[in-house]
């Protein structure tokens, strides 16, 4: 059971001696998994409780809300950290205090006294403090001074090359979902509830659930058709997911529409977790309904062809 603590500069708990992993953990990618693995090793070695310190909202979103796109919402982030075995997550509210605090002061007057870490686990590219001036070198210096063990996790030379959230963001924006999923180590996902849509899909023989749009700063995938899996309250289904503006029907707003394979029933109001593993094609404007329906059958065939490579044990 993972516990999540929301904390802020004005409400800082005094947490006893521990092993501390700090980072932004956006996307909870393979590099972050290495950090959590390292955290778990340190927990085993020291017998101390381990905790993850992360920020909400993402500092880059706080600093520049127009430019930053998140790979995960904080709920998705916490769920993934929990899946990888993080037991206690401290979500620190990122605000003016954190924006303005100098990195050494942040370490000496917040991290050290409040968490009393005996071991700090940190990714090699993590930056913190005012203007992001705090880095591993500073943490290393501070750890030496206070006799704290530092476990630096190299994210540059992994089996996947350099892993970073920004590299994954670029891959997603370029439509290279498969590359992004490889670096993430898990599918890209959306969570939301099913809203009522225009019910065009039903008339085409492809009923779709209209997923509520995620709150900013979550990244919206470039328009296209994607393959993945959809988890409803009861079950998990294969699904085709269409994102974009529905040009064939002169749509104006971005929508995420989900078609579940082998499913009949009503999904209105339900919460869905939509996992996306690969991209089938970009969004196309068709001359008429018939052409669109032909393409959707083709998409389904393409999906079925591709699926076994992604879910070998569940081929259908």
């Amino acid at each position, binding site marked *: 059971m993972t516990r999540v603590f929301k904390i802020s500069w004005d409400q800082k*708990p*005094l947490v006893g*001696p521990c092993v501390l992993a700090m980072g932004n953990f956006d996307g909870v990618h393979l590099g972050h998994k290495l950090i959590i693995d390292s955290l778990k090793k340190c927990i085993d070695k020291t017998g101390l409780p381990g905790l993850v310190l992360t920020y909400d909202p993402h500092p880059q979103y706080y600093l520049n809300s127009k430019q930053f796109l998140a790979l995960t919402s904080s709920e998705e982030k916490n769920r993934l950290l929990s899946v990888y075995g993080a037991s206690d997550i401290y979500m620190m509210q990122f605000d003016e205090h954190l924006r303005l605090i100098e990195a050494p002061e942040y370490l000496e*007057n917040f991290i*050290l*006294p*409040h968490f*009393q870490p005996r071991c700090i686990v940190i990714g090699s590219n993590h930056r913190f403090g005012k203007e992001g001036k705090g880095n591993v070198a500073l943490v290393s210096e501070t750890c030496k001074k206070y006799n*704290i063990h530092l476990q630096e996790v190299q994210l540059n030379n992994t089996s996947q090359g350099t892993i970073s959230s920004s590299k994954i963001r670029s891959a997603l924006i370029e439509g290279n979902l498969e590359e992004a999923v490889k670096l993430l180590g898990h599918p890209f996902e959306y969570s939301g509830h099913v809203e009522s849509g225009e019910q065009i899909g039903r008339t085409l023989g492809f009923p779709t659930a209209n997923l509520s749009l995620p709150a900013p700063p979550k990244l919206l995938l470039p328009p296209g058709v994607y393959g993945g899996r959809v988890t409803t309250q009861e079950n998990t289904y294969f699904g085709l997911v269409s994102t974009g503006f529905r040009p064939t029907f002169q749509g104006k707003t971005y929508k995420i529409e989900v078609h579940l394979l082998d499913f009949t029933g009503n999904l209105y109001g339900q919460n869905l977790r939509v996992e996306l593993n690969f991209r089938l094609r970009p969004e196309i404007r068709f001359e008429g309904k018939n052409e669109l329906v032909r393409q959707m059958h083709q998409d389904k065939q393409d999906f079925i062809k591709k699926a076994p490579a992604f879910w070998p044990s569940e081929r259908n």
Partner: protein
Amino acid sequence: MDPAATGLMVVGIGKATRFLQFYEGESKSYQFDIVPGIVTDSYDREGTVLQEVSLDQLNPPLTEDAVQEKIKNFIGVQEQMPPIYSAIKIQGKRACDRVRSGEQISLQARTVCVHRFDLIHFSKDRLSVEVDCSKGTYVRSLAHDLGQQLGCGAIAENIRRTAVGRFSLQSALSPDDVHIDTPLLPIHEALGHLPAYILETQQIQSFLHGREVRLQNTPNPSDSGSLEFTPVKSGHELLVCVLSPKKKFLGLAELHTGQILKPKIVLG
């Protein structure tokens, strides 16, 4: 002053009460104890205990050097969060009273200045300190914040105010020692932190009637012995004591540019 604190309080009697407002802005000095290892919502022992922290496992350990190191962070101008149990008024009602009646309140951080923060005696379970600070500084918050930075939490105890501006506890009297024949400080001496100006004899009547007085001579600070002359600003103007040529205290005035004295409080 906090209900639980002891020490110096400046008391005005009769007409002198009108001048007490000019002490509010003065710096204060306090002696108090900081008890590490405990966090309360009131930052002293009165409130609810939120956390107790073992002092054995602290890194760095609680030593005199570690405390000296952290204390340095508190000297100078800073933003301070007052304790929610404080006498600050929110829409006319004291914050502590609002909290006691179950209200959720949020206080604004205030800009304060700590001029001196000395560790007088160190022991593992009690730090005795002395602090000189600006108006509006909460020493309970200093204790709490220092405890947070030490990683063990802390509360303030035995708060004693030792000085307000130029008055100190040594020269103060206990209320029980004040009798009808106790010599009291005259007002103009009590206001000795203000510069003083002596009027010409023919200007006195005009001033006492509340009229502006144009100074003919360059004003001279009166010869008031060992008094310090710290200009106190009231609004944007300089506040001065106004005396008769025989050094009788006539009132307070603002000194405006162009050598004009505007009466502020006049003793009838």
